[in-house]
């Protein structure tokens, strides 16, 4: 190892570690200390644990998370098997399209559920029995399910692809029937994939913010909502910090389990896997395909309903009226910010967040390729923001850095950081697989020709992960565009930094539904453009 090599590694490791320390670990530690060290610290912790509001919030979180995860697992597993194990026309595009709902804020899914099965929804209007799914716990679970089931599908498919086709075919050739093949070959990896998806669904649903408030109200508020209310509305920062600490302790288990399972899934990838032609003579094939069709149909109907309603609201009005209302001066006056400014903020913050993510990603990739023992723990540490949840992250950043930045547009810095930190763990996953596929000699050839460590990485490894980097940038951009909870924490009191998701959230309680539909449709169209770019990159890879 040359001195230059060591220096480059040190710079990358120190950079990532300093970033995490400054914007995640130190602010979070300060927040928790704030919650525990004051004169009422211990009392605040006790109150967070025992108060009716705290207990009810935890109960609501666990109920919503548990139901959503169970249903997402039940529906997503068979659909994921169809995507992962079989080859069929349009499989690659369908698989990418499944990520689309995950790129949108949960708010769009809330509007979709209301547009579809709400009292004046496309189906809920003529079929009143379906309205049960548009409010209360059923409505929240429906939103969480539709938001997260694509992730269960994608991760189950990844699990299926982690199995070895050679092993499967060997077992079958030795006389093992479908049940034996499942047990010996693809059962465990597919279950790990589905387990990852279900755990992520549990965490994201238990800590969801907008669906419980918009579809149920205070009685369904999750811990995430309760932390926000204590901090931003009730003026009880110590109590909020104490509750945030309990939240992190309670949800650390499932989040860490998710991270460990996801790592295990990636560790077994790269075995020889070949998707097979569907065997339509077997009933199970119809079960897998039917589940996938159900997921696809539900997601399409939901997003289609949003697009449809954005063109014509149920209360009448001319074609395109919601869009005209959205850009009108009266709407801007009602929500305190013109929509043009929100669009500009959305795109600018997401672009900056994507830039931060990709710098983190390339640094992490460089380190992991040269020093896995250092790079892997740092990559793992990038998951901490997901563990501590968006509201707690925002609260920590706001408490720690807010006094330095003051109010106004400078808060955009914290919005960008929150979006980058929350997107990074997911966006960087598109880098890990190509990174694992880099042969050992890729950088050694450049080094042997006299290149320094960074040049060797740029010439030897980076071209091989370029597609992954591009996908990570787009993914981070899309996630940043759709990020709502942390952004809302900063942007609610500061109209100048509001983004489209925040505006949608403000439009719904103001009962400006047509305007909210148009804003949601706009976000959907922007996300569709990003999705198209990701799919095009995937297509280029396939060629």
């Amino acid at each position, binding site marked *: 190892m040359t001195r230059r090599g060591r220096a480059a590694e040190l710079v990358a490791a120190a950079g990532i570690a300093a970033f995490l320390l400054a914007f995640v670990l130190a602010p979070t530690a300060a927040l928790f200390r704030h919650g525990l060290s004051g004169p009422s610290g211990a009392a605040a912790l006790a109150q967070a644990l025992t108060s009716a509001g705290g207990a009810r919030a935890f109960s609501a979180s666990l109920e919503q998370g548990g139901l959503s995860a169970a249903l997402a697992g039940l529906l997503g597993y068979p659909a994921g098997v169809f995507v992962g194990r079989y080859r069929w026309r349009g499989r690659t595009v369908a698989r990418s399209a499944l990520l689309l709902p995950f790129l949108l804020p949960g708010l769009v899914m809330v509007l979709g559920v209301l547009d579809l099965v709400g009292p004046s929804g496309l189906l809920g209007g003529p079929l009143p029995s379906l309205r049960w799914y548009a409010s209360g716990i059923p409505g929240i679970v429906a939103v969480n399910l539709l938001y997260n089931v694509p992730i269960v599908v994608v991760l189950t498919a990844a699990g299926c692809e982690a199995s*070895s086709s*050679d*092993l499967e*075919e*060997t077992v*079958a*050739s*030795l*006389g*093992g*029937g*479908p049940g*034996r*093949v499942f047990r*010996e070959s693809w059962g465990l990896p597919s279950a790990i994939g589905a387990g990852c998806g279900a755990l992520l669904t549990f965490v994201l649903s238990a800590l969801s913010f907008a669906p419980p408030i918009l579809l149920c109200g205070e009685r369904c508020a999750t811990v995430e909502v309760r932390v926000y209310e204590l901090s931003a509305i009730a003026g009880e920062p110590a109590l909020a910090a104490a509750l945030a600490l309990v939240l992190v302790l309670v949800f650390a288990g499932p989040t860490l389990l998710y991270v460990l399972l996801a790592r295990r899934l990636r560790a077994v990838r790269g075995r*020889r896997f070949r998707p*097979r*032609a569907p065997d339509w*003579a077997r009933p199970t094939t119809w079960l897998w395909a039917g589940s996938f069709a159900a997921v696809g149909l539900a997601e399409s109907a939901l997003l289609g309903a949003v697009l449809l309603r954005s063109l014509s609201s149920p209360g009448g009005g001319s074609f395109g009226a919601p869009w005209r209302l959205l850009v009108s001066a009266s709407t801007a006056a009602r929500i305190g910010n013109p929509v043009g400014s929100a669009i500009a903020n959305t795109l600018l913050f997401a672009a900056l967040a994507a830039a931060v993510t990709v710098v983190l990603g390339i640094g992490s990739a460089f380190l992991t390729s040269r020093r896995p023992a250092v790079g892997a723990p740092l990559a793992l540490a990038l998951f901490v923001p997901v563990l501590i949840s968006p509201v707690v992250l925002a609260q920590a950043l706001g408490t720690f850095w807010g006094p330095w930045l003051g109010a106004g547009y400078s808060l955009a810095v914290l919005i960008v950081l929150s979006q980058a930190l929350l997107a990074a763990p997911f966006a960087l996953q598109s880098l890990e697989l190509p990174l694992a596929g880099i042969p050992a000699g890729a950088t050694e050839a450049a080094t042997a020709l006299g290149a320094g460590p960074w040049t060797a990485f740029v010439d030897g490894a980076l071209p091989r992960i370029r597609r992954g980097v591009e996908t990570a940038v787009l993914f981070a951009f899309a996630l940043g565009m759709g990020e709502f909870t942390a952004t809302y924490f900063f942007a609610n009191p500061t109209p100048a930094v509001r983004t489209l998701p925040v505006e949608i959230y403000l439009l719904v309680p103001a009962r400006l539904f047509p305007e909210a539909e148009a804003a949601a449709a706009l976000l959907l169209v922007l996300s569709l453009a990003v999705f198209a770019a990701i799919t095009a990159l995937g297509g280029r890879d396939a060629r």
Partner: protein
Amino acid sequence: MLAEPILEVDRLSVRLGRTEVLRDVSFTVGPGELLSLLGPNGSGKTTLLRTIAGFETATSGTVRLGGRDVAGVPVHRRSIGLLVQDPVLFPHRTVLENIAYAPLLQRRPEPEVRELAGRLAELLSLAALLDRVPGELSGGQQQRVALARALAARPQLVLLDEPFASIDPEIRADLYAEFRAALRASGTAAIHVTHDREEGLFLGDRTALLFGGRLDPPGRPEAVFARPRSRRAARFLGYNLLPGPDGPFAVLPEDLRFDAPREGGVPATVRASGPSGRGYLAILSTDRGVRVALRSATPLLPGTEGGLTWETALELPPDDAADAPAEPKNREAVGTP
């Protein structure tokens, strides 16, 4: 072939996506026979085995195993053993448990399974390794376990998909011999596919060449080698193709002679030369730019100009008329081609 064939493949075509991978492939395999299919990468060898096994579906044509059309029969009911490049042993089971896997699935009595496993282990030199797990075995040993495991299922047919490709060259010949002996002893018919011509010609009772999804009729390995049916077959089998007045003809590197200075024959220049076995292998190019390989007893100096002559050459049919074998043709130095 007098006995009823174990496998009959008749006009089999397979399309994967938009690509027709196999076209009108027909052949049979007799009881206890080992058929070697030779072809370059991408010629459809693996697809052919996977279709016979039931992992791919034929677009048209039939596969009959033991006289029964197996269309629609699932893989695990076809009585087929499969060996691929990766032995795919069960890592958490011992060698004995791996070999006993299929007989136990078939619910055969345990004493019979033990006896069978012991016999196969003896046959494949695995008797001392029965208590080990796959991670403690070499690549060759793992492949022997894979064959023992496949044979323990008492299949009608074993499919060998380049099983020696990742085995060290110095033990590969031993494995050829052991595999052939084990298949003979068990009386199991087998199809073996490879792109290694030495391996294919050595192992097969009969050999056939597969190019672009089309199969030449199988024949004795000696005959397949001595009478290639097309230019690409000749090229694949290691012949030099030299242009002649009536079309190209094939000459083996051993049958070429290089004289410098040139005293006749085809003008050629030595491009490279190096030791190969007991003699030397030289690469030359003719005055028309045709690349030629030549084996010689002495080294040739790169850049030397001279003339190529030969004793025996084969006239070749064109590639699209691959139904007739090449005609032997003795000629002295074919003037200027």
